[in-house]
């Protein structure tokens, strides 16, 4: 035995060292595991790959159940930069039918964090979008040769008919502004860009789902986390039923071939838009797939602006169709009675001011004045109203009253249709003229607004809505193109009646005038024995060229089913294009078909061009 008991004390040094080590480690564990959440977050972002499950976008049908828009698979080529080393670029370009230049440019774009803020070399980046099924199958065969390249199936839109491009709109990849304004979107997502695709985006898109996958250190997927317990299934988008009647829309587009302008038809009792033609138009199918960019450039460069939806974005002088609103205002304000007659000797002559008119009997009371579209009558009416100092203290007061009537009829402001980009038109008010004429103006100064000229501008939709308001004898429902959103009730905006400031009895007078116009006035061409048509022509003066041809009408007179506005730019007289086209449209909608004679006339109008039409269809664009 050693007998050196001094040494035995060293066991405390050794045991103490062990205790100190373990205590230090426990403190370290405590700080790592309990004091910081960072490691938990790092661990989750390490191991969980949250893969988005895209919902099917809602389908779109017309009011009769015809399928207009549906989904079709497309294939995006994705690339993971860190894995795509050693790829034969030449082979890749050949397989995808792209140039080397394009390849290099695209790669630069992907890596540019300014343009692609979500860039990471370890995650999939969009390399090329929307391969067709044939392109996909060709590329798929060779995919094994291109490590780092993947195919992601996407769903894109397909259109059954070449019509209603402006209404249906299209979808495209989200831009940075979309991502910034709605956190739902991520780079590469699709969003509605135009038409109902945009205005009903939230209903159509559904809700994305989320699949939580486990990813190992080399990025390989090792299965679903907890067998999908925390996955969220995508919610499919809602289907839309448009209020559009596809056949009516197609006929309208056919009739407007080679003419610029618009046709808007509304079901007066519901405010549902039955057709909305804007000409020139294009086949919506050219906006899908990879030719979208090319098509968009073509359309944007056309001086006739086919991308413009003239029905809601075109702001035109309404011409004589506007006289109906004037008659209603004067009647309601007591400026005239139905029996009041004003003289017209080929126009309105007063204190050196002259507004021309065509030959008709004189003096005329209101109904024949509407029927013959007498300029003089409405000029006198406005003159008497604006000069009435018993009723209005100043001309400004008169103007304000007048403006309020116009606004109550849906003019001067956006109606609120469920389409993006609607314009408000123009209804002048007193301050506007005070400024323009330095407070020195009278009814005579602004006399042309009474016949829908001068400062007054309406969209074709507002003109059609005027027709619907008259058809309803004093109210309208905000026009809308979507009749039903699956599983949702329509916005109350599109169900609530809005009354104008004019009583029903005055509307009856105006309706008589419009009926007279069809029976023996300017709209004789629209007369038919099947039902009672009421109408009003317009020949809107155009300082830049030929006058515009306008028709506003509705039918039948009692329980109207359709109110319509036809606006043909540079179509000269209202009766030249407006009335016959309007008549054909009403016949198509009310009878469900055209008679043989009407068919012939439709063909005749289809081929009657004001300019040489440019066709934007799949064949012409892909050439």
């Amino acid at each position, binding site marked *: 035995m050693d007998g050196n008991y001094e040494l035995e004390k060293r066991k405390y040094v*050794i045991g103490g060292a062990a205790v100190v080590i*373990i205590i230090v480690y426990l403190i370290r564990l405590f700080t790592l*595991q309990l004091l910081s959440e960072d490691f938990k977050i790092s661990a989750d972002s390490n191991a969980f790959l949250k893969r988005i499950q895209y919902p099917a976008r809602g389908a779109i049908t017309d009011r009769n159940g015809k399928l207009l828009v549906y989904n079709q698979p497309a294939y995006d080529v994705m690339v993971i930069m860190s894995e795509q080393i050693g790829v034969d670029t030449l082979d890749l370009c050949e397989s995808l039918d792209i140039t080397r230049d394009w390849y290099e440019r695209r790669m630069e774009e992907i890596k540019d964090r300014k343009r692609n803020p979500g860039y990471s070399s370890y995650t999939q980046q969009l390399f090329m979008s929307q391969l067709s099924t044939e392109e996909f199958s060709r590329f798929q065969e060779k995919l094994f040769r291109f490590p780092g390249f993947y195919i992601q199936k996407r769903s894109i839109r397909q259109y059954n008919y070449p019509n209603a491009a402006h209404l249906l709109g299209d979808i495209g990849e989200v831009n940075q502004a979309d991502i910034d304004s709605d956190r739902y979107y991520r780079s590469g997502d699709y969003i509605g860009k135009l038409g109902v695709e945009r205005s009903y985006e939230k209903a159509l898109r559904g809700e994305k789902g989320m699949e939580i996958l486990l990813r190992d250190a080399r990025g390989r997927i090792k299965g679903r986390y907890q067998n999908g317990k925390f996955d969220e299934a995508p919610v499919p988008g809602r289907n839309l039923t448009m209020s559009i009647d596809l056949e009516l829309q197609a006929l309208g587009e056919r009739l407007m071939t080679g003419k610029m302008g618009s046709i808007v038809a509304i079901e007066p009792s519901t405010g549902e838009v039955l057709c909305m033609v804007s000409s020139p138009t294009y086949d919506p199918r050219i906006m899908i797939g990879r030719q979208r960019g090319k098509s968009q450039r073509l359309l944007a460069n056309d001086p006739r602006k086919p991308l413009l939806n003239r029905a809601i974005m075109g702001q035109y002088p309404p011409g004589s169709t506007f006289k109906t609103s004037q008659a209603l205002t004067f009647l309601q304000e007591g400026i005239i009675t139905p029996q009041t007659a004003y003289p017209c000797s080929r126009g309105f002559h007063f204190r050196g001011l002259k507004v021309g008119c065509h030959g008709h009997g004189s003096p005329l009371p209101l109904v024949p004045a509407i029927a013959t579209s007498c300029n003089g009558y409405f000029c006198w009416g406005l003159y008497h109203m604006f000069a009435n100092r018993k009723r209005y203290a100043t001309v400004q007061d008169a103007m304000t009253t007048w403006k309020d009537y116009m606004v109550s009829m849906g003019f001067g402001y956006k109606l609120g249709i469920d389409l993006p980009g609607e314009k408000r038109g123009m209804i002048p008010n007193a301050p506007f003229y005070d400024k323009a004429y330095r407070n020195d103006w009278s009814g005579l100064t602004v006399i042309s607004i009474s016949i829908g000229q001068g400062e007054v501008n309406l969209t074709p939709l507002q003109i059609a809505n005027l027709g619907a308001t008259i058809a309803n004898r004093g109210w309208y429902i905000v026009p809308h193109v979507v009749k039903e959103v699956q599983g949702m009730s329509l916005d109350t905006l599109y169900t609530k009646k809005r009354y104008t400031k004019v009583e029903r009895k005055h509307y009856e007078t105006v309706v008589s005038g419009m009926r007279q116009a069809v029976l023996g006035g300017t709209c004789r061409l629209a007369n038919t024995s099947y039902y009672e048509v009421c109408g009003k022509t317009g020949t809107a003066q155009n300082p830049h060229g030929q006058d515009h041809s306008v028709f506003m009408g509705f039918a039948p007179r009692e329980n109207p089913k359709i109110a319509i506005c036809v606006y043909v730019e540079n179509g000269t007289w209202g009766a030249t294009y407006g009335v016959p086209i309007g008549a054909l449209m009403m016949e198509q909608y009310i009878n469900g078909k055209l008679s043989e004679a009407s068919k012939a006339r439709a063909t005749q109008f289809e081929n009657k061009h004001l300019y040489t039409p440019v066709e934007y269809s799949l064949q012409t664009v892909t050439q």
Partner: protein
Amino acid sequence: MPQKQPRNKKKAPSLWGSLDWLTIFIYMVLLALGWMSVCGACYEFGGTTSILDFSTRSGMQIVWIGTSLLLAFLILMTDDRIFESLSYIIYIGFLGLLFVTPFLAHDIKGSLSWIKIGSFSVQPAEFAKFGVALCLAKVMSIYGFDVRNWRDFIICIALIVVPMGLIVMQKETGSALVYSALFLMLYREGMPGAILFTAISAVVYFVVGIRFGWLPVMLLIWVFTTGLVLVYVERGKLWRLWWLLPPPLLAIYLLYLSLRDRVMSYCLIALFALGSIGFFYSADFMLNHVMEQHQQTRIRVLLGLEDDPRGAGYNVIQAKIAIGSGGLEGKGFLNGTQTKLKYVPEQDTDFIFCTVGEEEGFIGCAIVLLLFLALILRLVHLAERQPYTFGRVYGYCVLSIFLFHVFINVGMVLGLTPVIGIPLPFFSYGGSSLWGFTILLFVFLRIDAGRNRLQR
């Protein structure tokens, strides 16, 4: 009570009665927790094979555990004296085995320490610790042997350094470093504390020097030197202001004092100071010119000099993420994501503690660490109660090795010690290490069980 047994009672207390069951209990619990961790580390999400399947590592680990228990039983069945008598033969046998290993080995990740026997690979370095421990115990129990004697001390060093060198030749620096743990045993047996102090000082200089530059090191040397003078020679005479001299001048002054006063301690302390300065300046040279690239990197990353998330630092970062994400209670058995998805490298061997941290949380980690502490403290107790030097030395060898493994392995996973690839006892997957630790422990338990035999 045993002491009061009558002398004429010839029968020694039974083996089972004198076995230390507490140690065996801790051993069994650690084995069970270790197996759970291996399951966690090898489990494949969505995989179809059962964790008990022998094609999986968790299944194989059952085989290793089973054979280890069998081995433990066989050891307990032998006569404890056989180990003492065979210790030289065992030591020489292991030296021979270590010597031939690099020639027979097949290369596994640059290591030449594995030899193939049938379909199994065996790492002799894991077993050689046992031989070295036995041999040291035998040599040191020779009558008159004293570590404080320079000649005897050098014999001990030689017994340790020779196998270390052989293992370094197998490119297993980590396993070789384990033998340095035996200095702890030498300290217990009388090695001057100054040597241990010097060795630890060297490591501290190295770490501090690389991390913070020369000034703090000089400050440390000055503190150590002054402290030594005050403790060993001057006994608190602080009023002489010589101790304010900077270390090099201080050393020279101390040398002058030793010559003047003929006090050896001054000389030794001066040598310590000079040696410290020399060591520090050679350390930088060592790091940049002697060490291999990957070792340099590991040290630099450990000391926070290099941020290298995909290289050596990656392991440490991912280990910390895995452990840190466990929280208080962990994610639950087989629910860890970081370890299973292979973010943590070597997650079933060297980095197995990550699995404990991730799946069992702070509570699990604390239990494991406290069990290891209990094991080591129990072994200190057992070693101290040995009646003979042989048993005590062997016991200290065993506990020093366990302490070193736990210290380095857990410290590396926690980012506190360098990344040195050595297994965590009873946790890391693999037959060699489990068998090695089992043999080490149970031979000691068998020796301990024989402590009450009548005095020879």
